[in-house]
C-alpha cells in the first residue's frame, strides 16, 4: 500500500533581501534607545512619556509561558529595535521613494507608483521600522478619511492619537504589548469620520528586511459613528537562519453603528524544513465595540511564521454589538501556532461568532485557545464557536482549549469541535474523477477553510487559495 505524506506547498517566494543602506540604532534595549527612537520620530513629549511608562512596566513583567509553543528564550538585549532605510531628504511624494524600495514592493506584488498602484486598495507600505509610502492618501482625504503611517499621525493628528492610543490595548496589557508600546516605530493609522463608508479597501503591507531586527509596529483604526471600513494586512520576510521577532499591536475602535472588518494574511518566513529560522509572531490584536450596534470582524489566514501567538479579540461593550473571528491557521514542518480569540460580552444582546480552522502537516503543532466571557450585565448574550482541526500526516498535532466564563443566566453559548483527517476514500473519489492527488488535497483543504475564506475580501481570497497549495512527498510504506 502506498503511504503519502502531505505538505503544504512552501516554495517561499518572498525570501529575498533588498540591498539597501539602513540607519539602525545600537543593539539592545534601555531608556536611551527609547529616547532615540522617539527623537528620530520627532514625537511630542506625551509619546515619550507613554513609551517610558510601558518600558518600566515591561521590566517588571515575565514572558508568558502558558502558550503551547516551545522555543529557546529570547535575548531582548540582542535585538536591534530600529532599522530604517536611509533617506536622503524628506519625501514630498511617492515619486521620491527610493527605487530599490519600490522595486521590493513591486516584487511582493504591491506596486506603489501612481500609475501602477492597485485599483480600489489604498496601501501603507511598512519596511522594517518605518512606513515608506501610502497610496491614495489624497483621494481618501476627500472623504475626510485619514489613512497614513502612525508616525505621520503622531505629527499631524496628535489629539486623535492621544485620545485613542492604548484605550483598547493598554501599555500594561501583556509582555509583548508592553514591549511594543515602549519601542514601536511605525505602523498604520486610520480614522473614518461619522457616516462615511470608506470607498476602498485599506491595507498595510509589512516587510521585514534587515537582519537581527525586530519589527514592532502599531495599527490604530477608529471608525466613528455610522462609518464602515475594511482593512487588510499582509506580511513577508527574507529567509534567514536566525529567528526574528515581530511583536505588533493592533487596536480597533468602533463607535455606534460603525463596522470594522479586519483581514490578515500572515505569510512571514516560517523557517526551513528542520525548523531553523523563521519569524516569531507575537501579536496583540483587539477591537472594542464602544457604541451600540457596532461590529468588529477579524478574519485571519495564518500560514507563515515559525511561532504564532495571537488572539484577535473583541470587547463587546455597546448594546447589540457583534464580534466575529474567522481563522485559518496552518502549521507545516516545525511551525507552531497558539492562536484564537477572546470575546468579552459586556453590553446587552451582544453576539459573537468564532470559526477556527487549524491545519497541521508534518510536525506542525496547532493550538486553538479561546475565551468567551459573559459579564453579569450582558443580558441575552449569544456566542457560537466552532473549532475544526485537520491533520495531514501522523506527526502533526492539534489542540483545542476553549474557555467559557458565563456570569449571566440568559446567555447562550455553544461550542463545537472536531478533528479529522483527509480520508483515503475522499482522495480515491477525487482521483477517480480525474483530479491529481495534489489537486484533490488542495481542494479538500480549501473546502475545509471555505467558511473562513468567504469572509475575505476578493483580493485576499485568491491569495489565500494559492497559499494553501499542497505538495506531496510520496513514500512507499
Amino acid at each position, binding site marked *: *500500500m*502506498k503511504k503519502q505524506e502531505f505538505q503544504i506547498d512552501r516554495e517561499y517566494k518572498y525570501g529575498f533581501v533588498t540591498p539597501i543602506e539602513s540607519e539602525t540604532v545600537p543593539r539592545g534595549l534601555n531608556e536611551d534607545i527609547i529616547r532615540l527612537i522617539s527623537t528620530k520620530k520627532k514625537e511630542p513629549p506625551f509619546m515619550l512619556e507613554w513609551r517610558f511608562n510601558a518600558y518600566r512596566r515591561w521590566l517588571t513583567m515575565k514572558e508568558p509561558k502558558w502558550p503551547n509553543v516551545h522555543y529557546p528564550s529570547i535575548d531582548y538585549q540582542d535585538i536591534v529595535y530600529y532599522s530604517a532605510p536611509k533617506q536622503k531628504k524628506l519625501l514630498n511624494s511617492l515619486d521620491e521613494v527610493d527605487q530599490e524600495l519600490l522595486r521590493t514592493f513591486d516584487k511582493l506584488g504591491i506596486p506603489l507608483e501612481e500609475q501602477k498602484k492597485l485599483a480600489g486598495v489604498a496601501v501603507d507600505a511598512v519596511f522594517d521600522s518605518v512606513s515608506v509610502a501610502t497610496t491614495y492618501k489624497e483621494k481618501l482625504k476627500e472623504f475626510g478619511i485619514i489613512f497614513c503611517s502612525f508616525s505621520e499621525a503622531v505629527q499631524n493628528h496628535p489629539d486623535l492619537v492621544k485620545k485613542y492610543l492604548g484605550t483598547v490595548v493598554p501599555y500594561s496589557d501583556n509582555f509583548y504589548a508592553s514591549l511594543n508600546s515602549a519601542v514601536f516605530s511605525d505602523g498604520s493609522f486610520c480614522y473614518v469620520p461619522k457616516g462615511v463608508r470608506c470607498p476602498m479597501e485599506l491595507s498595510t503591507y509589512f516587510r521585514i528586511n534587515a537582519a537581527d531586527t525586530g519589527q514592532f509596529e502599531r495599527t490604530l483604526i477608529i471608525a466613528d459613528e455610522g462609518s464602515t471600513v475594511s482593512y487588510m494586512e499582509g506580511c513577508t520576510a527574507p529567509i534567514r537562519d536566525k529567528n526574528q521577532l515581530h511583536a505588533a499591536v493592533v487596536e480597533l475602535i468602533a463607535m455606534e453603528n460603525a463596522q470594522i472588518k479586519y483581514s490578515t494574511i500572515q505569510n512571514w518566513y516560517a523557517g526551513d524544513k528542520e525548523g531553523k529560522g523563521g519569524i516569531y509572531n507575537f501579536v496583540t490584536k483587539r477591537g472594542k465595540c464602544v457604541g451600540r450596534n457596532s461590529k468588529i470582524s477579524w478574519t485571519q489566514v495564518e500560514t507563515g511564521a515559525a511561532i504564532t501567538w495571537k488572539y484577535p479579540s473583541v470587547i463587546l461593550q455597546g448594546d447589540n454589538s457583534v464580534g466575529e473571528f474567522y481563522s485559518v491557521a496552518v502549521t507545516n514542518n516545525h511551525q507552531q501556532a497558539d492562536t484564537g480569540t477572546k470575546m468579552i460580552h459586556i453590553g446587552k444582546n451582544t453576539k459573537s461568532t468564532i470559526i477556527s480552522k487549524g491545519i497541521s502537516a508534518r510536525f506542525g503543532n496547532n493550538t486553538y485557545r479561546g475565551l468567551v466571557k459573559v459579564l453579569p450585565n450582558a443580558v441575552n448574550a449569544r456566542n457560537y464557536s466552532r473549532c475544526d482541526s485537520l491533520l495531514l500526516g501522523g506527526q502533526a498535532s492539534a489542540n483545542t482549549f476553549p474557555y467559557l466564563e458565563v456570569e449571566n443566566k440568559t446567555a447562550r453559548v455553544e461550542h463545537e469541535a472536531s478533528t479529522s483527517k483527509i*480520508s*483515503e*476514500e*475522499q482522495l*480515491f*473519489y*477525487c*482521483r*477517480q*474523477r*480525474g*483530479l*491529481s*492527488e495534489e*489537486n484533490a488535497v488542495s*481542494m*479538500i483543504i*480549501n*473546502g*475545509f*477553510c*471555505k*467558511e473562513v475564506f468567504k469572509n475575505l475580501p476578493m483580493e485576499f481570497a485568491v491569495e489565500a487559495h494559492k497559499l494553501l497549495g499542497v505538495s506531496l512527498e510520496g513514500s512507499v510504506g
Partner: protein
Amino acid sequence: MLEIHNLHVSIEGKEILKGIDLKVKAGEVHAIMGPNGSGKSTLTQVLAGNENYEVTKGEILYQGKDLLKMPTEERAREGIFLAFQYPIAIPGVSTAYFLRAALNEIRKSKGLEELDAMEFLEFLKEKIKWIEMDPSFANRPVNEGFSGGEKKRNEVLQMAVLEPKLAVLDETDSGLDIDALKVVANGVNQLRAPERSMIVVTHYQRLLNYIVPDFVHVLVDGRIAKSGTKELAFRLEEKGYDWVKVEPEKIHG
C-alpha cells in the same frame, strides 16, 4: 474496449477474485450480478484503480493498453468512470467547483481548452435539469448532507458531465425507491451510446428491468459462474443464487 484475463485480486492477503475473464465491446452493457461478498464491488474498485486491492495475477486491457499500469486519475482521464456505491462527502467543495475541476482535468489531458466558470455552470445547469434535480444542487458541497437517493443521482449527473467511455456502476440501485430508481435508470439509458460501454453491478434483478443489459454475468465466490443474456437475470430472480452456486464446482472441480 475492455478485456479482463484471469484476474486474481486480494485484499489484506485474502483472495477475493479468483480468475475473472470478461470482454466488453464498445456500446455494450454488461450486468454483473451475484450474492453479497462474491467480489462484485472488488471488481469495480480494481477497474477504477483502488490501490488497496492487490492484483496477484492476470491482466486488464483497456483500449489495448495495460490498465493496471495506469494510476487512478489517468484511468479517469482516459474515460473510465465509477459510480460509487457509497459516494463520499467533500465538505465545503461545491458540486459545481468539483465537477468543473474534474472535467477540466479530463479536457486538458485530451488537449481541449478548459471551460471557464460561467460556461461550465450553463452546461451543468442543463444536466441538472435533465436528471430532475434542484438547481441548488450545483452549489451544495459534494455529497454533504445528501440523502441516499441524491447521492446516487449525483453519481449519474457526474457521469453525464464527464461523458466516460467505460462507465462502471456499482449498485447504483441500492437504497433507491422505485421513483428514484426510474429517474436514475432513465438517466443511464439516455447515456447509452454506440461508443460507450457500461458495466452495471447489482444485487437485484429489479434494476435490469429498467436498464436492459446485453449480457449478464453471475459472480459467485470470485469467479464468473454463469454468463448469458438478460434472460439469465430473470432465472436468477426466480431461483436465487443458490441455483448457480453448485455449478462452478462442476466446471472447475
